[in-house]
């Protein structure tokens, strides 16, 4: 397998309801990425694009085909990935494998979503299609509901009093907003306090408004190239050195491990093993904090804290810049935003920008050599990517 690098990135702001279509947002990100890579659209051999709900939000299927055509990458193979919130991570991983295998040299991968356009009731309903429609949705399950149940289970299983857990969760949200404040791409630019979190309205007990990510619109794309090509195109390639992916059944079928998402442990082990690294080697992490409790649960499965102790990473500022494992310094899903089809690729862009020293100085992490991205789609599709600075 050949080495594969990210040679170009494109990332629109993540926003509330956009006034641009999914194809338009994609095109902006895609052309930025190809320009950054000193390429033209006709150099792109294939397109791998994540998009979950284009049919509901815009009445548009076959987004992948229109996207390729729109940027002038005529007739190229173009494939859409649907993996809930992990869609664009799946797209990047798949693209990596095609290039690593030698089938393609230069491809474009990432995703786009216009979820905010749907408005909360329809967005809540369509996101809930990521649950088991026969056996679990009828109970009224929604995504905040799923993570809410994991929060109560976490408190019960690890004997962490709910009050303390909610304070740890609030710290996660507070930190997200602290960094999102400085990210020009972020949906929210306001700091919040623990009190703000604990006094916001209850969505699904025990999750309150600021424990939850917003519905967002936006696109993020990367150009991947085989090593030899990459060195011609940029002097700052970021190599993808490990990939992992796993799937799960409905929530109730995960009974042996909950509140741990076992699929994440399977996926990240693939990624760590492939990259030849351990959790302590990771300098920067972009993990899937769709809800504050999700950060705590993810950090444990990714190996950054013992099970039941993830919240301490935020209590001890270990998840902040200067801490043991800077986490979601982009603002994460809660503050930067979560256009689900684009999120995974957005995480890759953030790590690349941090490695290149291109982010706002207030949130620049020094010395990032190895980064990890983590996305969780639906009840348990997980994808992890290890990125390594290549200069």
């Amino acid at each position, binding site marked *: 397998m050949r080495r594969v690098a990210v040679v170009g990135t494109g990332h629109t702001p993540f926003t509330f309801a956009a006034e641009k279509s999914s194809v338009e947002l994609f095109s902006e990100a895609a052309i930025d990425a190809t320009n950054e890579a000193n390429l033209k659209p006709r150099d792109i051999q294939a397109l791998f694009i994540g998009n979950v709900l284009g049919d509901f939000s815009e009445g548009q299927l076959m987004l992948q085909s229109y996207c390729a055509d729109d940027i002038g990458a005529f007739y190229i193979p173009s494939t859409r990935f649907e993996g809930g919130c992990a869609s664009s991570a799946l797209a990047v991983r798949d693209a990596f494998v095609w290039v690593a295998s030698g089938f393609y040299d230069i491809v474009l991968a990432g995703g786009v979503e216009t979820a905010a356009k749907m408005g*909360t*009731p*329809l967005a*809540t*309903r*369509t996101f*809930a*299609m990521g649950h*088991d*429609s*026969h*056996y*679990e*949705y*009828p*109970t*009224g*399950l*929604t995504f*905040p*509901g799923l993570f*809410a*149940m*994991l929060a*109560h*289970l976490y*408190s*019960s299983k690890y004997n962490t009093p*709910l009050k303390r857990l909610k304070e740890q969760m609030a710290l996660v949200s507070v930190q997200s907003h602290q960094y999102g404040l400085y990210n020009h791409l972020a949906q929210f630019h306001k700091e919040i306090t623990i009190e703000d979190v604990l006094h916001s*309205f*209850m*969505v*699904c*007990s*025990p*999750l309150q408004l600021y424990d939850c990510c917003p519905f967002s619109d936006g696109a993020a794309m990367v150009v991947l190239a085989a090593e030899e090509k990459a060195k011609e195109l940029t002097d700052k390639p970021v190599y993808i050195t490990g990939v992992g992916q796993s799937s799960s*059944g*409905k*929530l*109730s*079928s995960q*009974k042996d491990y*909950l509140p741990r998402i076992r699929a994440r442990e399977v996926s990240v082990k693939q990624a760590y093993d492939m990259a030849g690294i351990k959790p302590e080697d990771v300098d920067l992490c972009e993990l899937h904090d769709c809800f504050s409790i999700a950060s705590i649960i993810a950090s444990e499965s990714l190996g950054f804290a013992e099970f039941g102790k993830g919240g301490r990473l935020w209590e001890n500022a270990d998840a902040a810049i200067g801490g043991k494992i800077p986490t979601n310094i982009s603002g994460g899903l809660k503050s930067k935003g979560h256009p689900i089809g684009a999120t995974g690729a957005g995480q890759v862009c953030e790590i690349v920008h941090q490695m290149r020293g291109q982010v706002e100085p207030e949130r620049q992490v020094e010395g990032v050599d190895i980064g990890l991205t983590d996305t969780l789609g639906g009840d348990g599709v997980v994808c992890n990517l290890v990125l390594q600075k290549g200069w």
Partner: protein
Amino acid sequence: MSYRLTFKEFNNALKKDKLLGLKCHDCGQFTCPPKMACQECSSTNLDIVELSGTGKIVTFTVSYVASEGRETEVPYTIVMVELDEGPWIMGNLTNIDPNKVTMEIIGKRVKLGPRSKVFPGDAYSIGGKEAETGLARPTFVFA
């Protein structure tokens, strides 16, 4: 190979307050809700059985924000129940005011209630004969 216990059959039984599951001929464990293969060992050598419908609450949430079209249900309590036979199943808890639900309910014993609530379905949910008269949800009360 034919699907052993379909949603259609499971759903119809649940509407009559019967909880069906699958017992594995190879490992003896139970799978509920039903699947093609055994939850534990992946065997497809499965027998349909009626489960007790009793168990204990392992976690819950009270939902205040509904999906489009289900606003009148709010607030409601979703529970994850560990059935006595082993499997976990998601359902609703009905004989307590949602606003009074706390962590105290975790560990409490429940049983399938006298009337399974039915989600009638909406524009986006499954159509077809398997869900003609709605999708039942395991509806629990304290035992």
